[in-house]
C-alpha cells in the first residue's frame, strides 16, 4: 500500500470539507473494495475519508410505506433488522447473502452502491424496488443512478447519505454465486409494487452492470408465477462471459434465478 492520509469524518459536512482538501481523495465506507485495491497498489488516493463512523449515516427507519437505510449501515444490520425483515424480507435476505460475516460487519449499503460493482447484490434491489438514492446534494432515482460498470451519477465529492425503498407488495431475490468470489454470477431481484407494477433487475449478468429485465417483467405482469417464465428467452448478447460463466449460461441464469426469485417472493 502506498502512503495515504486517513481521516475519520465526524459529520457529513466534515467529510465533504476533508475531501476537498486532498489532491486525490476517496471516501471509505467499509472498504471491502477500496482497501484490497489499495493493498495491491492499484489505487493510490492521497486522502481517505472514512464516512462509516458518522453517526447520522447509520441506522434504519421504517415509516409508512418507506424503508430508509442510512448509507453507512452495515449489511449485517440490514440482514438482522426486524423492521426490514417485516417490511421487505427480500432485502434483509439479500443483505444476509453478501460476502461472508466479516464483509457483512464492515461493508455498507452506501459503499456498495457508490462502487457499483457489476456483480454486487444491492444494485439489483435498488433498481427493482425503484429506490431513491439520497446524497448530501440531492435525491437520485435508481433509474438515473447506475451508469454502467463501476460508474454512477455521483459527482466528485458527493456522498450517499441514505437509500429509500418503497415497500412492495411482493419481492424476492435469488442469487447464483460465483464459485470463487461468491459475488453474484447472476442475481435477480423481482418486485411487484403496491400499484401492481412489476420491476425486475439482474446483477452480475450484463456487460453494462445492473439491468432491468424486460421479458421477465412482461411475463410476470401477465401472470405472477415462476411458471410464467418457462417460455421466456433471455438474449445472450450484451451479457458478460468469463471463465466462470459464458454469456448463454448467464442468460439461462437470469431466467432460472428469476423463477426462483418469484418462488421466494411467494
Amino acid at each position, binding site marked *: 500500500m502506498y502512503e495515504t492520509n486517513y481521516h475519520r469524518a465526524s459529520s457529513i459536512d466534515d467529510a465533504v470539507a476533508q475531501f476537498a482538501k486532498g489532491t486525490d481523495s476517496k471516501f471509505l465506507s467499509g472498504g471491502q473494495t477500496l482497501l484490497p485495491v489499495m493493498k495491491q497498489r492499484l489505487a493510490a488516493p492521497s486522502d481517505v475519508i472514512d464516512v462509516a463512523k458518522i453517526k447520522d449515516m447509520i441506522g434504519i427507519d421504517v415509516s409508512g410505506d418507506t424503508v430508509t437505510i442510512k448509507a453507512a449501515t452495515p449489511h449485517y444490520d440490514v440482514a438482522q433488522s426486524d423492521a426490514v425483515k417485516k417490511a421487505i424480507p427480500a432485502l434483509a435476505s439479500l443483505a444476509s447473502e453478501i460476502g461472508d460475516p466479516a464483509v457483512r460487519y464492515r461493508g455498507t449499503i452506501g459503499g456498495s452502491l457508490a462502487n457499483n460493482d457489476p456483480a454486487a447484490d444491492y444494485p439489483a434491489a435498488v433498481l427493482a424496488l425503484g429506490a431513491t438514492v439520497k446524497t448530501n446534494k440531492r435525491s437520485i432515482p435508481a433509474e438515473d443512478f447506475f451508469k454502467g460498470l463501476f460508474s454512477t451519477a455521483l459527482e466528485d465529492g458527493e456522498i450517499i447519505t441514505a437509500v429509500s425503498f418503497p415497500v412492495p407488495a411482493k419481492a424476492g431475490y435469488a442469487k447464483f454465486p460465483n464459485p470463487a468470489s461468491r459475488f453474484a454470477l447472476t442475481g435477480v431481484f423481482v418486485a411487484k409494487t403496491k400499484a401492481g407494477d412489476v420491476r425486475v433487475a439482474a446483477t452480475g449478468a450484463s456487460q453494462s452492470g445492473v439491468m432491468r429485465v424486460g421479458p421477465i417483467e412482461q411475463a410476470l405482469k401477465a401472470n405472477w408465477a415462476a411458471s410464467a417464465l418457462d417460455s421466456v428467452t433471455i438474449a445472450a448478447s450484451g451479457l458478460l462471459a468469463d471463465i466462470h460463466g459464458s454469456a448463454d*449460461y448467464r442468460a439461462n441464469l437470469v431466467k432460472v434465478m428469476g423463477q426462483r426469485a418469484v418462488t421466494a417472493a411467494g
Partner: protein
Amino acid sequence: MGVEGIGARVVRKEDRRFITGQGRYVDDVKMVGMSYAHFIRSPHAHAKVKGINSTEAMKMPGVIAVLTGQQIVDDKVGNLICGWAITSKDGSPMKMGAWPAMAPETVRFVGQAVAVVIAETKNQAKDAAEAVVVDYEELPAAADVRAAIKSGAPQLHPEAPGNIVYDWHIGDEAAVGDAFSKAANVVTLELTNNRLVPNAMEPRAAVAHYDQAEEHYTLYTTSQNPHVARLVLSAFYNIAPEHKLRVIAPDVGGGFGSKIYIYPEEMVALWASKKVNRPVKWTGDRSEAFLTDAHGRDHVSKAEMAFDKDNKILGLRVKTHANFGAYMSLFSSAVPTYLYATLLSGQYVIPAIYAEVIGVYTNTTPVDAYRGAGRPEASYLLERMMETAARQLKVDPTELRKKNFINQFPYQTPVIMAYDIGDFHASIDAAMKAIDYAGFPARKAKAKANGKLRGIGVSCYIEACGIAPSKAVGSLGAGVGLWESAEIRVNPVGTIEVLTGSHSHGQGHETTFCQIIAERLGVPISQVSIVHGDTDKVQFGMGTYGSRSIAVGGAAIVKAMEKVEAKAKKIAAHALEASESDIVIENGEFKVTGTDKAIALPMVALAAYTAHNLPDGMEPGLKETAFYDPTNFTFPAGAYICELEVDPGTGKTSFVNFVAADDFGRLINPMIVEGQVHGGLAQGIGQALLEGVVYDDTGQLVTASFMDYTMPRADDLPSFQLSHTTTLCPGNPLGVKGCGEAGAIGASAAVINAITDAIGNNKLEMPATPDRVWHAIHG
C-alpha cells in the same frame, strides 16, 4: 495399546501453539539489521530482457541494492537443477534448458524474477522496484501443451527442439498390440487432468543471514526438507559448503509438495545476504504464490482399454502429454513417469500395459509434485476408464471392477510396481455398504420426481507411498536416496528427544512420533519431544512428501528405538543382576520377567550417564541413531463412492453422501489419519469441482487470485463418512502404509463419475463448474 500408544486418538500436542497464534514461522523471524527483498518479475510470458536500469531506484529512500540476473550468473551461482534423470524412448537423456535464479537474458513465464531490490523496509523495496526500468522485447508464447507441440510453435529453449523435454515410455507395446487384436471390446477415453495451484496457507518465505567472520550462512525457509535444501544449495548452487550452511525450516504452514523444491527466492536471499552483508528477508505474498509456487498436474491423455468377451481386461494403452511449464523443477521429471505410469495397473489384473509420456515445455509456471503427484493423474484416468467401460459394456461399475480386481499378493504389475498386500474387495464392499449402493436406484427415482439429477460414482485407487527404496529409485534415475534417519536421545533424567529427518508442516508428527515411543517404552508423551527442521540439530534427513513420514521416518525411529532398548536392557540387567534375556519393558520399567525386580527408565538413563556402574566395556550415554531404507514402496488403497445431485437449471452439484473406505495398514493416531483423509478429499473434490488454472493464449495467468481461483471451502464439501479396512504392510516394522495423499488421489474420479452418471453425458472435464455441467446437460 496404551492411552497414548499406537492406535490412540491422542489430541495433537502441536495444536496448542498453532491455535493460540504462537507458532513460529519464517516471517516471524527477525534479525538485527535485517533488510527486505522485493523481486521484480516479468509481466510477459516470453520476452528478451534487453536491459535493466536501476539508476533512479538506487536514489530512492532506504534502498541498499538492486541486484540482477546477470550479477547472479557472474557470481557463478548455479542454475536450478532437476534431480531425476529420465531417458527417452530413443535412449537420449532428457533435454533441459538452463534455469538461472533470476533471468539474465530471457523470461519464460509471467512472474519469473529478473531482479531484486534490497531495502531497509518492505515498502521501500516495493517503491524502488517500481522505479526500476526493465526493457523487454516481447516474444510469442506457447501457453499450453497443445499450442507448444504444434509445428511452428514458439520455442522456449534451444536445448529442447519442439519444446519436448522427453518422449518416454514404459511397458510392452507389442504385448498390448496383441491384447487389442484379441479384444472383444475396446473402450477409449480422452481427458485432461487440470492444472492446480497448491495454495498452502503460509506463503513461501526466507530469511538469510551471512556471518562474515565465520563465512557461514543461515537460512530460515519454508521447506518440507531442509537437509535436501542444504544439499542442493551446497552441491549445485555453490552458495556455501554444507558445513558452512545451516538451513532451518521452523513451523511451516502447509506444503502439499510445493515446498519440497529449492526456489530462486531462497537462493537469491542467501546470495544477496553476502552481497549486502545484511540479513535479508523475503516473504512472498499470495499473488507471488499463484505465479511462482510450482503448480500441479496438467496432463492431456488418451487411453484405450481392451476387454475380452467376459469383460476381463486384456490390455491398456495410454498416451499422455505432461506440461512442465517453462523450466524443469526439482522432481518434475519423475512425476508423470515413475510416479504416474507405474500406477496405471490400479487395483486390476491388466496383463499388458503400454504408456507413452511426452514432457513439454510451455510459457507457464513450472509444474512439479502436488499432493499425490502423478498418482492422482493415474487414478483419475483409470477410474474414469472403468466407469466409462462399465457403461459401454452395460455392466454395473462395481461388478466390472470386482471381476478384474487383483486377488493374489504379492502381485507384480507390468509397470514396475510389486504390490505387497491388499484386499480390494474388502474396501469396495465396505464403501458400498456404507452408502447403501443397492438402494441407489430408488433414491435416483425419488430425486427425479423432485426435479434433480442424481448420480453415483465409484473410484478404487491404489497408490505407491513411503518413497522409497534408494537402490530402486536410483536405478530409475533419482539423484538422491530416499531413506530416512532418526536419532533417539534418552536424557539423564529419562526424558526423550527424537530427532527426525522427517519434517512436519501440518502432519502432526510431534504427536504420532511420540506415540511410537510411548508404545515401546510406556512413557507418557509429555516426556517425549520431537526435534526436526534444523540441519544443525538433526543428523540428516530426506524430509516429508509422498506420504513417507510414518512408513520411512517412523520406521527409522523404530530402528533407533531397538538400539536404545538393547543397550538399556544391558544396563538394567547389570543393575538388577539378571540375565539380559530376562529383561522386559513394561510401563516405563525394565523388569526381570516373572519377578518383582524392576528399574525405571530414568534410573537406567541416569546409570548410562553417570557411568559409575555399567557393564564392562560399555560406552556411557544412551543415544542411538538409525538410518532406515525401505525395501519397497507401500501401497495404500481404498474405495470411494460419491452420491450427488445436479440441479439441471443451473448445473450446480450438491453432495448427498461421500464414503471412503481406506486401507492404510496400521493406524498410529486414527484422529490424525481422519484429518489427513478429510484434507485429501477436500483437495480431490476441489480438483473435480472447483479448482483449475487458466492461462490465456498469451500466457497471462487468469486465475491469479482467490477471486477467480476457486479454493474449496467448508460449505463446498459434504460431511465425509470414513471407514478403514486393514491389511498390515509387511515391508516395515510398524505395518503402516501412509495416508497423506489418498484422498487427493481417489476423490476426483468418484465425483466426476457421479456427475456423468447423473447427467448421462460422459464428456465432462474438471473442474466440473456449474457452467460446464449445464452445458454438458443442455449442449
